[in-house]
């Protein structure tokens, strides 16, 4: 079952396309569309990043995305979300992740959008390799475990629902 709303790959991200996907067909059916774009930063902990690559385990990433989409549907039944993650080399200032969330209520659209980025950071099997003038480092964040209830609660708390 393919879902254009969820994708991962080396293509340049288009958040406008995602917003259109969630805005729906019926004119005016959704009152609020919130988007998030995460761009590659030129500084990380005081070091100047010169190059950056994202690696992903793509089939598992799509599973993680579907899990997140279903969690959003459980929390905010009226919200629709779409999100894409980019892989491979990404130029500074370009987007690594793009998310769109739509809902009749703006509070739900904000919360759903925020929840997606928090959960992506917790469980998406994606790794960031940063290169500096004088070396490189794999950025490592969360231990990926979709069933970790504490992590889910933290993501929900941050989404300010």
């Amino acid at each position, binding site marked *: 079952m393919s879902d254009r709303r969820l994708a991962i790959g080396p293509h340049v991200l288009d958040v406008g396309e995602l917003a259109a996907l969630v805005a729906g067909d019926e004119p005016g059916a959704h009152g609020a569309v919130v988007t998030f774009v995460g761009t590659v930063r030129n500084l990380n902990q005081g070091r100047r990043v010169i190059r950056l690559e994202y690696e992903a385990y793509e089939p598992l990433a799509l599973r993680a995305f579907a899990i997140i989409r279903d969690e959003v549907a459980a929390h905010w039944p009226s919200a629709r979300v779409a999100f894409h993650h980019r892989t491979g080399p990404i130029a500074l200032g370009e987007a690594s992740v793009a998310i769109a969330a739509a809902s009749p209520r703006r509070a739900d659209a904000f919360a759903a959008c925020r929840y997606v980025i928090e959960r992506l*950071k917790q469980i998406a099997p994606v790794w960031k390799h940063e290169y500096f003038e004088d070396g490189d480092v*794999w950025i490592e964040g969360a231990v990926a475990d979709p*069933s970790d209830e504490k992590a889910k609660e933290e993501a929900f708390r941050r989404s300010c629902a």
Partner: protein
Amino acid sequence: MRVTVLLFGRLHDLAGLRELECEVPREAAVSAVWQAVTGRFPAVAPYARSVSAAVNAEFVKMTTAVDEGDEVAFLPPVAGG
């Protein structure tokens, strides 16, 4: 029996490869596959506490049993977004 192992992120840097075949006993758990990997590549052993795993592109526990021909992926802590 034989399983395919995928190593991601810093794990493949430390091991020097992204994919390998492992022989493990019948009904072995994912943790036994990890033991086999750390036996061959001691440099990845420090990830024992932070690694997570997938079998055939589904998240699993380290206690999940694997089957002949499974694709077992080991994931260092993730950093998407």
